[in-house]
């Protein structure tokens, strides 16, 4: 097993062993992140595949991450997700009527609530959505998020504050 700090250096040389280790290390987390935000296993797999494909292409061109590989991969995955919703029809999610959960199975209710949360996240700006996803879904610290978004920690806090306020307004104020 290649030591973690050397992984990126080896990957930049297109060392297949290092690339395999990177894939094994990050693909489950990326999948989880994608499926949470996308709600679809198949699209989440596409997201993971596309993320690693872009990573490989960047390495081939001598570009790609110089450090903070995890931040790079999650940023790439998030871009895919945003693009997916931009080119798809997120309105169908937003326009769903609130289901009557009393007469449905619990799983169905859960799916519907998840749809609502995702739709609310899509109403946030790109950066706000990513801050919320990384912070509250993936459990990252502000410093890690700052690296992923190439922003100072103070800006991340500010984004988080505004994002939470907006989400609260969308998801909770409607309930009142």
């Amino acid at each position, binding site marked *: 097993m290649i030591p973690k700090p050397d992984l990126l250096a080896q990957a930049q040389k*297109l*060392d*297949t062993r290092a*690339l*395999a280790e990177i*894939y*094994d290390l990050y*693909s*489950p987390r990326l*999948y*989880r992140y994608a*499926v*949470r*935000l996308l*709600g679809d*296993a198949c699209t*989440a*797999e596409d997201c*993971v*595949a596309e993320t*690693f*494909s872009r990573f*490989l292409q960047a*390495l*081939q061109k001598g570009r790609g991450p110089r450090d903070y590989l995890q931040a790079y991969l999650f940023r790439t995955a998030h871009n895919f997700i945003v693009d997916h919703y931009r080119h798809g029809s997120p309105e169908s999610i937003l326009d769903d009527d609130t289901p009557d959960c009393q007469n449905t199975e619990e799983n169905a209710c*859960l799916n519907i*609530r*998840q749809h*609502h*949360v*995702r739709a609310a996240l899509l109403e946030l700006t790109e950066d706000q959505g990513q801050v*919320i996803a990384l*912070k*509250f*879904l993936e*459990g*990252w*610290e*502000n410093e890690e998020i700052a690296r992923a978004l190439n922003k100072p920690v103070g800006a991340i*806090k500010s984004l*988080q*504050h505004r994002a*939470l306020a907006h*989400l*609260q307004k969308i*998801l*909770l104020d409607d*309930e009142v």
Partner: protein
Amino acid sequence: MTNDEKIDPRLAALLDELKSASARDPQAATRARGRFLAQAVSASEERRHNWWMTIFQQKEKFAMNLIMSALVVLGLLFGGSATVSAAQDDLPTQSLYQIKLMSEDVRVWLASDPNMKIELLMDQVQTRTEEMAVLTLAGITPPAELSIRAQDRIQQALQLAATLDDVSMSAAIEQIRTQLQTQEQSMTQLQSGSCTECEPILQQIRDMLHTQLGQIESNLADPETSREQNQNQSQNQVRTTQTPLATDSLVTPQTSYTPALDGTGQQNGNINPLTGTPMPQDPGNNQNNNENSNSDGSVNGNGSASGAGGQGGKP
């Protein structure tokens, strides 16, 4: 995770519900991994291939440069030497004759041993004599440049001999005398040939050879005096003349002059090629007027010996 900001528990609960997304299908994960690794291997091989291609192209470029350089060198060596070789049989009337003269100069210049230089210089004198013979037999009047050059080379040989020790000098002068005697005989035989137009110039050459032989005789009789004369002559020439390639500053004979030659063997003006004396138009006048030439080779009288005073012998 440390939440820096208080989050509404209901909102936190809603966000937590996203965490319970379905687990990844292991088969789909394996397939995806396989696809990625295939891409990675392909990318790795492509880079390796490109790396080798780059190296190969660089090597190829280097090899091409090497080959081209070798071809140029070979061309210069064989092409150049072939040209020089082809020029060796040329006569003054032929196109490569100047190359022949230049190659002769180079050969003398490259020789480090004075005896070798003397031998080469006398070979050149013999070559000039042979050229005159060939031209005369062909009914062509030999150009004056031939005798000028021959005389110049004899003088250079004598001056070089003066730089040697007594024994070597005597041997060298003896060798020069023998060669000049042979050449004088050849000239005498040619003079009795059928080319009547050539007779005046041949007579001049014969006179020149005769004069040189006289000087050699006096050198042999009084080596010390002749050594001083030759050395003084050399020093004067170093001061007053430019040094041509072939002569290592032993350039212009004391009694020679430098008519302006345009490199084609043609003489500019009517000047006696053997003495530097202005000549009348009549080719029959072959008198030598050595007294009209001074020691630095310039011309007294009406004859305009142009050029860088005393560069006789330079092709």
